[in-house]
């Protein structure tokens, strides 16, 4: 059978730096093909070449076996190739419906068919079990909802080839399952799917075929059948990755952070919790359970009621600077909207939060550069060159830069919201080790994560939130998936 879409010997360079070296990939209809690799390996670039967003520097793209020159996404879409980007591709001021149909609006005569488009969008959202209103503006809906809108947008285009770049990075298990049902359905309809994820369990579950990229080259392309997660990981990283999570530790000194009766209107009700020195405290819950809002309130990024004390000193509400001075930092889950200045250099991004430390009257450019060198080394940030804009980094490397930026303030209490979103498995291991090291050094860490295994593997104690309230907590040996899920679903209502 002829592949629907294939690359043969494709290379791609940005300036003098070649990031893809001779890629060969064939997508067949009715087959799910997974593309995996470390951060910066070239997955997104490969996908962009396949869907007409980037031109290959050399090599050929074939549709149904015929070489084509894809010069624009529009042309690719014409040919039935649709891509969901790693970074959102939605216009913030437009509504969900408007985004879903952007560029190919339904019309009745010369005018838009509002009712028709709305109905269709609602149907898609229902199919995806997404609660966002078709009339809500993108700016007003949550990150996971946006991802679902992206998926709805792609589904609405009736693709022959669907390319998805880390669609599940911001989704929880439940939504991921919804997505997979849709993928199964498309597969049955004969759509070819190319898909990437750093969650290798998903790859196991979904893929018929796996291609592994390392540093822009293909190292493996094989049937998924019989391939274990460990084998995939080893192929990606080039080393063995047993012991993803460091051994469990026993945390708990004095209480360093104490939050009492925190209320964030519309999001959080009466949340109280304590954090001890040297502890790794997990926050679990379904998407929309208010974890982000609670922590933003604690960190002074949102107006709140209730009190937050750090080492006995009360922090003012709605101001972030005092929290930072007290040694508390928050790492945002939304790196694109709240985390990084995408059109600025790495240096400016890295030091923005901790700029005080680099300026004694004037900013010490040398110290900044040294800090950047250090960050690149510490966090293994893969960059083409030092002057690259933050927005041109691969998704995972952006996340690493964000982590480096946050840690630069030399905090005592670290709140990380989805810290490993979009990060490859090798680096994840490093980050887990890093968090452990911090705790061992006497720092306290709060980890919000929608990946249950991560929470379970990493944390000493886990607080579970449900609908804006703290539903309960589990600690030590009781930390297991069943207990957490029961709390998160509201099946068990014990007090914290």
């Amino acid at each position, binding site marked *: 059978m002829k592949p629907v879409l294939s690359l043969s010997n494709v290379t791609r360079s940005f300036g003098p730096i070649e990031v893809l070296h001779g890629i060969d990939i064939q997508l067949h209809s009715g087959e799910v093909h997974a593309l995996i690799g470390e951060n910066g390996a070239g997955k997104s670039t490969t996908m962009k070449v396949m869907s007409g967003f980037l031109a290959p520097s050399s090599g050929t793209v074939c549709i149904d076996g015929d070489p084509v020159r894809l010069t624009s996404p529009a042309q690719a879409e014409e040919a039935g190739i649709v891509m969901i980007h790693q970074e959102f591709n*939605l*216009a913030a*001021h437009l509504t969900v419906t*408007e985004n879903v149909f*952007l*560029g190919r*609006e339904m019309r009745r005569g*010369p005018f838009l068919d509002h009712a028709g488009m709305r109905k269709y969008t609602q149907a898609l959202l229902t199919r995806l079990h997404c609660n966002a209103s078709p009339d809500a503006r993108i700016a007003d809906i949550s990150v996971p909802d946006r991802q679902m809108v992206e998926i709805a947008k792609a589904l609405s285009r009736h693709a022959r080839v669907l390319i998805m770049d880390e669609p599940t990075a911001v989704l929880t298990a439940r939504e991921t399952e919804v997505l997979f049902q849709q993928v199964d359905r498309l597969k049955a309809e004969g759509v070819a799917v190319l898909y990437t994820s750093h969650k290798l369990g998903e790859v196991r579950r979904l893929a018929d075929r796996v291609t592994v990229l390392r540093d822009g080259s293909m190292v493996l392309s094989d049937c998924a059948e019989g391939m274990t997660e460990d084998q995939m990981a080893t192929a990606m990283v080039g080393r063995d990755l047993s012991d993803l999570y460091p051994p469990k530790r026993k945390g708990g000194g004095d209480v360093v952070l104490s939050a009492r009766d925190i209320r964030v209107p*519309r999001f959080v009700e009466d949340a109280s919790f304590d954090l001890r020195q040297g502890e790794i405290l997990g926050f679990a819950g379904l998407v929309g359970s208010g974890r982000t809002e609670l922590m933003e309130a604690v960190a002074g990024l949102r107006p709140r009621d209730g009190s937050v004390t750090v080492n006995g000193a009360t922090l003012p509400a709605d101001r972030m600077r005092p929290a930072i001075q007290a040694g508390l930092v928050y790492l945002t889950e939304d790196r694109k909207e709240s985390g990084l200045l995408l059109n600025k250099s790495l240096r400016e991004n890295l030091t923005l939060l901790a700029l005080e430390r680099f300026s004694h009257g004037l900013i010490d450019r040398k110290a900044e550069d040294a800090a950047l060198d250090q960050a690149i080394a510490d966090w293994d940030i893969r960059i083409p060159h030092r002057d690259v804009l933050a927005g041109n980094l691969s998704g995972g490397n952006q996340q690493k830069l964000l982590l480096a930026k946050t840690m630069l303030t030399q905090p005592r209490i670290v709140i990380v919201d989805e810290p490993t979103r979009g990060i490859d498995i090798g680096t994840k291991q490093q980050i887990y080790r890093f968090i452990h090291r911090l705790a061992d050094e006497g720092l306290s860490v709060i980890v919000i994560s929608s990946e249950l295994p991560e929470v379970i593997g990493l944390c000493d104690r886990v607080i579970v939130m449900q609908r804006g309230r703290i539903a309960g907590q589990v600690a030590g040996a009781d930390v297991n998936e069943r207990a957490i899920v029961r709390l998160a679903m509201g099946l068990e209502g014990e007090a914290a």
Partner: protein
Amino acid sequence: MTATAEPRQAPRRRINLHAIGPLAALGVLLLIGIALNDNFLSYSNLTNVLARSAFIGIIAVGMTFVITAGGLDLSVGSMAAFVAGVMIMVMNALLPMMGQGVGVILVGILIGLVTGLFGGAINGLLVTRARIEAFIVTLGTMGIYRSLITWMADGGTLSLNYELSGVYRPVYYGTVLGVSWPIIVFALVAIAGEITMRHTRFGRHCAAIGSNEQVARYSAVNVMRVRMATYVLLGLLVGVATIMYVPRLGSASAATGLLWELEAIAAVIIGGTMLKGGFGRVWGTVVGVLILGLIGNILNLTDLVSPYLNGAIQGIIIILAVVLQRGGIRSN
């Protein structure tokens, strides 16, 4: 429960205020007008205000599209003067050949539309092809048109032949069922604009481009063409406005259309369109135009303040109108 159901209420309320804000400001102005002068509500006064707001209004409708798509046009005022100048020169030149009649006027109107279209196209080309900031392009063309009209009028005033003026006059002063032409044209342009903005692809694409150009491009929107079209449309509407303007004064000079660009942009923004693009509202613009028109009218209705301070009152009202729209001063 509460926590789940509530989330969207607050933004709703704000959106509502945002929506009715300009209308509220307009209402307040109307009340002030009524309180200050008995003749304010008279038919002739209201028609006067509407008719002369029509020029800025027609242009502001076009400006709404340009701004929604993330652009800006500072040249509309001088472009109007230039178009008026060209029209007058052509009509005067044709007079000996074609005789004094409707024919000349029709040719003049056509020339006006074409000139406006070209003016818009030049702005559009410079912005989309040469990729220069719209601010600079249109600041440049603003100076160029203003100079050209001064030069064409030899520093003075270009006047339409007096007899021709007589033939042309009804286009401004004439009425249909008691409603004068500029009002009718303004209403038509506004309605067409509102429909285009909300119910056509073009309007949707303007908002998309203004909101996020890259997203629009990725969604197969032809960004260049749409952006170009907004400038061409605006140029065309400048032509339409000028067609109504020439019969009003029968002349064009270096002072024609002075500061129209600021008024048009102010009307657009008072109406709730965002200066950075991404969201536009034609009916809001119409309300904005009416607010600006009424301020001037009301200041003429009374002697409360020294005429020197008219500008100050105007400034204060413009700011207040927008404050009202934002739903008052809120902390954070």
